[in-house]
């Protein structure tokens, strides 16, 4: 008995001691998240860069959809008032701007900026294709913000105007080009894509000479895509969202996109619903979760050259040649319209709207060319009836204001 008592006493003392020792270790495992303190961005530079690129892919699709709604590439079949207001260009800053556009773009910008910053410290920074890629994606991200938002913000900074945003994009593309060029063959795709992006930024900025010169460097056959994935567990975010939205009947195409043009691929038979007597049609350009979306191409470079020449020197020859080539591709006869600059610009944008339908470019086109009649580029004018038999009318908003989530939390917006 005595031994037992003694052993119990020992056990109790040991237990108390163990409890005291427990104070030394309250470390826990948290595998659901990655503690930033345990993540080495230098060693995982490629992961960081490709993850940031994926953030851009998600943002690109979100912005392309929102821009598609505003520029009338799409209509919303959803009952939500916010989506309808976006679609009718009567939206305000509170109408899902943050979720649809601003937050995804901000994530793409911040993550690619972070990747560029980290990779710039690496030993092979001067020739690192990951660094070049992140700089290029940063350029596209900022450029999309400039084309979609009325003004922008980068990582908690002050409000930036479109020209300021475009200058930031130009800087990023220029940096990407420098590194990609130094990387040699491994950087060729990044270099071509950066040139398209840079030319696009110059064009949007109004620097037509630089736009034309840069675009001319891009091979006509070049193309690079936003890659999507049909992986089941990630298709809701990484899959083709145009396909997903069409599948669900959430986003449909306006009737004016029944163009009998292979470039504007639609299905009038699905899903068969109508709203206010108007049949829905759905896009079939993307027919699976894994269909890629074109991001930059030699064809876009040709359009940029043509438009830059029209705006810069009123030269129509290159533009009309491209228009006719593209009309032929769409089974249309040669262009027989007026050849004044504005008319040619309008037709160029008409062809561009068909070629790049649902590729996130049309809203920028409209904002860049305010004098072009909307009807010539498959868009209803301000004041037109939104839906058949609807009391709602189209408005004139072509850019998204900074959402209150940002202005409320960013000290730069405080008085």
């Amino acid at each position: 008995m005595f031994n037992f008592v003694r052993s119990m006493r020992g056990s109790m003392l040991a237990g108390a001691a163990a409890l005291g020792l427990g104070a030394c270790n309250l470390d826990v495992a948290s595998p659901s998240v990655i503690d930033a303190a345990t993540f080495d961005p230098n060693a995982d530079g490629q992961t960081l860069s490709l993850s940031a690129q994926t953030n851009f892919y998600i943002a690109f699709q979100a912005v392309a959809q929102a821009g598609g709604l505003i520029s009338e590439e799409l209509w919303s079949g959803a009952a939500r008032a916010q989506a309808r207001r976006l679609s009718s260009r009567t939206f305000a800053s509170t109408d899902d701007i943050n979720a649809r556009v601003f937050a995804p773009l901000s994530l793409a910008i911040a993550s690619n900026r972070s990747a560029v910053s980290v990779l710039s410290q690496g030993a092979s920074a001067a020739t690192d294709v990951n660094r070049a890629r992140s700089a290029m994606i940063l350029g596209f991200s900022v450029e999309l913000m400039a084309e979609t938002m009325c003004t922008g913000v980068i990582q908690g900074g002050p409000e930036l105007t479109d020209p300021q945003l475009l200058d930031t994009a130009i800087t990023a593309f220029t940096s990407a080009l420098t590194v990609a060029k130094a990387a040699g063959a491994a950087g060729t795709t990044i270099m071509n894509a950066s040139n398209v992006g840079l030319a696009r930024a110059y064009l949007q900025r109004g620097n037509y000479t630089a736009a034309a010169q840069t675009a001319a460097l891009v091979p006509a056959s070049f193309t690079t895509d936003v890659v999507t994935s049909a992986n089941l567990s990630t298709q809701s975010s990484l899959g083709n969202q145009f396909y997903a939205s069409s599948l669900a009947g959430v986003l449909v195409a306006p009737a004016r996109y029944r163009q009998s043009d292979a470039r504007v691929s639609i299905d009038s038979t699905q899903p068969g619903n109508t709203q206010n007597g108007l049949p829905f049609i759905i896009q079939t350009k993307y027919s699976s979760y894994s269909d890629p979306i074109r991001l930059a191409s030699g064809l876009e470079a040709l359009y940029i050259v043509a438009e830059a020449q029209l705006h810069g020197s009123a030269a129509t020859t290159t533009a009309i040649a491209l228009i006719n080539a593209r009309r032929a591709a769409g089974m249309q006869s040669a262009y027989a319209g007026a050849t004044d600059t504005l008319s040619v610009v309008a037709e160029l944008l008409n062809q561009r709207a068909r070629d790049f339908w649902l590729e996130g470019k049309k809203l920028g086109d409209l904002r860049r060319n305010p004098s072009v009649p909307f009807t010539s580029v498959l868009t209803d004018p301000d004041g037109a009836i939104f839906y058949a038999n609807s009391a709602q009318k189209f408005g004139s908003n072509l850019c998204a204001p900074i959402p209150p989530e940002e202005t409320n939390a960013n000290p730069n917006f405080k008085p």
Partner: protein
Amino acid sequence: MDRSDVILSPPEAQQVNPLHRNRRALLVLSVLAPAMASAQQSSTLSAFAAHSSMIDHRSDAQVASVTGRVTDARSGQPLAAAPVTVVGTQQAAVTGQDGVFHIVGVAAGIHTISARRIGYAPVSRVVTLVDGGSASVDFALQPSAVDLAQVIVTGTAGTQTRAAQGAVVATIDALDITAKAPVSTLTEVLQGRVAGVNVASASGTLGAAPRISIRGATSISLSNAPLVFIDGIRVASGARMDIGGYHGLSGLGGQSVTAMNDINPDDIESVEIVKGPAAATLYGADASAGVIQIITRKGRLGSKRFNQSITTEYNQVQPNFTPLALYGTCGATDVVAGGADLCQGKTAGAVISDNVLLREGVFRNGNLQALEYSGQGGGDNFGYFVSASANNELGTQPGNHYIRRTGRTSFDWTVDPRLSVNASVGMSRNEYRVPMGDDSNYAYLIQAGFLGSPFNVAVGADGTRTGGTSTPVAGLSAIVNELTTVRFTPSAQIRYAPLPWLTNRLTVGADVASTHGFTMFPKNADNWYSGDQANGYVEDTQHPIHIYTVDYLGNIRKTFGREGWLASDLSFGSQYINTVENYLSGVGIGLASNSSYLVSSASTNESHQEYSQSKSLGLLAQEQLSFGEKLYLQAGARVDQNSAFGQAFGSLFLPKVSASYVLSQEPYWQRVAPMVSTLRLRAAYGTTGRSPSPGASLRTYVPFPFVTSAGGVLPGVIQASPGNPNLKPERGTEFETGFDAGFFGGRAGVELTYFAKRTSDLLLRNPLAPSLAFTSNPFVNAGTVDNRGLEFTVRATPIDRKNIALETTLTGSTVKNKLVSLGSVAISPVTEISPDLTYRYVPGQPLAAWYSSKVLSVDTVGGFATVTDAPVYAGQQFPTSQVNLSSTITLFRNLRVFGLFTSQRGGKLLNVTPLVQDLFFNSSAETNLPAGQGGYSKAEQLARFGPFKTADGKSVSTVIDSYLQSTDFVRLQELSATLTVPDAWARNMRATSASLTVGGRNLHLWKDKGFQGYDPAVISNTVNGGAGQYATAEEFTVPQPRLWLVRLNLQF
């Protein structure tokens, strides 16, 4: 407290302790005053007893034994489960069903023997034992409405009397409740028993988890559920909804079951409830929502007998409601050939109706069958308890059952007067199967009341109706939602008193639970389901939760002054808790055959996993001074560290102070003692906390795959939260004060408590600028919530005669909840149904306050309703007051009739069911039938449908405040009669005693006239934590069923 002498048995009747066979006993009688009429006498006795104990410990070579019987002084009936202790030692016994106890190995000398029982005034007797002697000590305990000598173990540093506690710790006599009331789960044991404890049912679906809150809502982001301990071991107590979380499904169809009900209530001796920070300080940085301590049944030390109990029970469970019928008004196109079947032969304007659930007999009587066994016994210095139970319960809906198997063993061993050991193991297997709930499109009520239509009913040639729901009933009942939890809760407690003034207690234990969840939407050819569930869908989850507790407490007791007038208890200790959860789920979409339902059998599959771990360590100390057993002062503190705290924060310091003054112990009180026999004033101040979620302080990335150039996915990262190195727990601070008064010799008593609880440093999500691009907003400490209120408990025995006795308990509470501030954080309003109706977190208002435009007046002539210019405060979601009344009538000493009424008022819920039927589908009786025949009056129509205008004529599209409806109710919650059958009858069954109980639960409900649903007490929502946790709604929710019970208990 009654202390009296005892006449001991003659030497020849004494037992000889086997350890000291050769010693003869001489028993010395010690005759002291029969009742201590003065404080001085009491103090003298106390000091004398303490002094004696010290002497006895030094001469432990000589031992004796004590035996006796504990009875109810009023009825003479034996009292089971009454602890009898040798004061100042670890030696104790527990009475059996016959009230008998036996303690051996007691050191020779003078001892105080104390017997107590919840609801009775304890009695102590002083005996003098000599070596080898045996004393017979009987105790007749008087029922007492105010029991200050009751020993409590929760919220205190060690085992202390209620008189010493400045803060209220409520005690539920679970043994008594389970013996007489129609309860079968722990949550039913808690419901309506204690002032300030709110148990809100989420739904009447069998197994649905309740929402338990104590003294109001405090946290916005964290759970408001109290912590639960079993015999000092922290256990999981939250809601389980481990399945149905993906591909458009809402966990368990928007329902949950609760871990609280894993334990068999018949294994519980009592439940102690620590209501707030004032009493919960010693439970540390996670206890601000209160603590529930479950004290399980133990063995009968020293009984030398083995008592067994078998209980068999049958309940009929009735739906307690008639499902909604859907109405419609036939149009011109409906009455012609090819129109709606039910409109054929009718004229346009005719009203049709159909009740598909009634027609299909979906809701029908269920039942509960239970068989329970328990055995209790012991030897000279050991006791043991074993139990096993089996419950099979069939709910009122198809696909709803609950199968529970439990087992428990406990072994106590008093090694010697200094050392005692307890080891217990609880085991359970709980299997729930539930139909889809109110949030799911595949729930019965939502199918019939929302997605169905009488216009879709087909009428056969023989008049038989079919259809009427979008998914047929067969499809709804084919959905499988099963949760099976296997749980193992071992614990060990060692009490060691090496010196008379030093005691130590070490508690070590674990709660090891593993839940397996399974959901299946079977493949079918009838297009029952849509989306990813269309072609066969399975989810299979494993969710183990392991909680480990190590708890040490030491106590040094010293007395000072003349006759030990001043007593000091210095307590110190530490508590370490480690919680690990690992949730793993597999999802399979597309089945080849329903017989092959593995996730891996599906055409496509995916997996999900979540893991969390938290560790906490608390060091605590408390000093208690007792002045003449009249005035008690306590000061203590706990210092906590937690793995979830920010690295820059360090430790949390939690102080407490309390005072308790038993005026009725003062000499001058004797003048009023015949009327006011007991009066105690008390006050307490204390602080606790609520820790953040594991990992909340860290700057984090989360895994997020990136897309390869080939369209594949590889592991990537995305930045999640910037973290908060200064993150600390929410801090709950509470002051409470009140009094306990006993009247007429303990036949009536009142407890009144005022509390003021403030929760500061609220953990709130700080919305970062989106341009910073963190995908998760970090927690910051900001904001304050106040809860203030009154609690009262009135106990009385107005009738106490030989053949009839009436005991009544009235409990009540009020809570005024107010959000004081949100600091710099703004929480966006949460919209419900219409942008006009929101619940908001607005300083100055209750948490989650309803806001809606209000109908100010109705102009039936002009045909419009005038509403406020903007949404205004429209009420709060939880009740502001509760009152419960329970009574027990004992007739002829062998028939007990028990009743419990519960009530609440002051809350409002959103009644979605009539709202949807009225506004969206025009399918309610009220919108289709003429006024006066069940339809809305003109004024009611305008109030609901408008048109709405503000006073200045501005048009408002939708105002739905008519559907914010009162949750006031009075319910006859329980009614039962328990007959103790004559002994001769019991003997015929080869039992020593037997009792038969019949009763019912949820027998009647009186609700507010404006409430349009079945049951205002069901809240649909069981979410723990987050701004949405307070949302209450009637949303096609199954009301609580009515239950009829027959229970037979046999004692052997």
